């Protein structure tokens, strides 16, 4: 189960994730990204209520990061829970994401 809240303001989008981001739920996030990444120069992910993620979830997050880098935009990841931070650390994602 994954709930996604988005707030699009001009060229910035805030995306809050709640639940599990895995291969069954990431198509939902990919659809949101596909719809919006072309329009924005700033993406802010709020992971405060994300319980866990799999490599499918990492793939979606990486896709957003790559899209922003390509157009000199900014992506920020906020409120990363401890268990998810452990995954970001072990996979090297904490070095390639801008985590606040």
């Amino acid at each position: 189960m994954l709930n996604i809240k988005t707030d699009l303001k001009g060229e910035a989008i805030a995306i809050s994730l709640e639940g599990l981001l895995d291969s069954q739920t990431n198509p939902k996030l990919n659809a949101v990204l596909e719809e919006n990444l072309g329009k924005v120069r700033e993406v802010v992910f709020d992971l405060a209520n994300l319980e866990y993620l799999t490599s499918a979830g990492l793939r979606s997050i990486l896709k957003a990061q790559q899209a922003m880098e390509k157009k000199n935009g900014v992506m920020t990841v906020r409120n990363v829970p401890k268990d998810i931070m452990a995954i970001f650390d072990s996979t090297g994602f904490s070095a390639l994401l801008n985590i606040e």
Partner: protein
Amino acid sequence: MKELRVEADRKYMQTVQDFVNEVLEENPECSRKDVLEIHMVVDEIFGNIADYAYDDKPGPVIIAVDTDEEGVIALTFSDEGKPYDPMSSKEPDVTLPASKRSIGGLGIFMVKNVMNELDYEYRNGRNIFTMKKRIGGNHA
């Protein structure tokens, strides 16, 4: 030991997740973190088998779960697809910048990080991949 046999198709992902979760729920030692880590493992391993084990028509996958008195859960996936050792996949370079990153190999890398023991064998035309994890408490 409990077993489930399904076709190697992602449409059965939730069936497999529910089956494994039911066994975990019977074990009072199993923490929420254990449940989440095993959920990730099922997502990665069943997903890989569904995507790569069979070329044309999906064949069978048998998922077996067993827990012992010492609080070790054993999760076995076996299929009759192409011989493939999941542990042979190249370790991902976790130091590359985002623009050069791909996700290949990351799933099995994450699985290795949360399971205590992994064992693969190819026997009688089957890939048999067994993973063990000590559940409960603060074990790695």
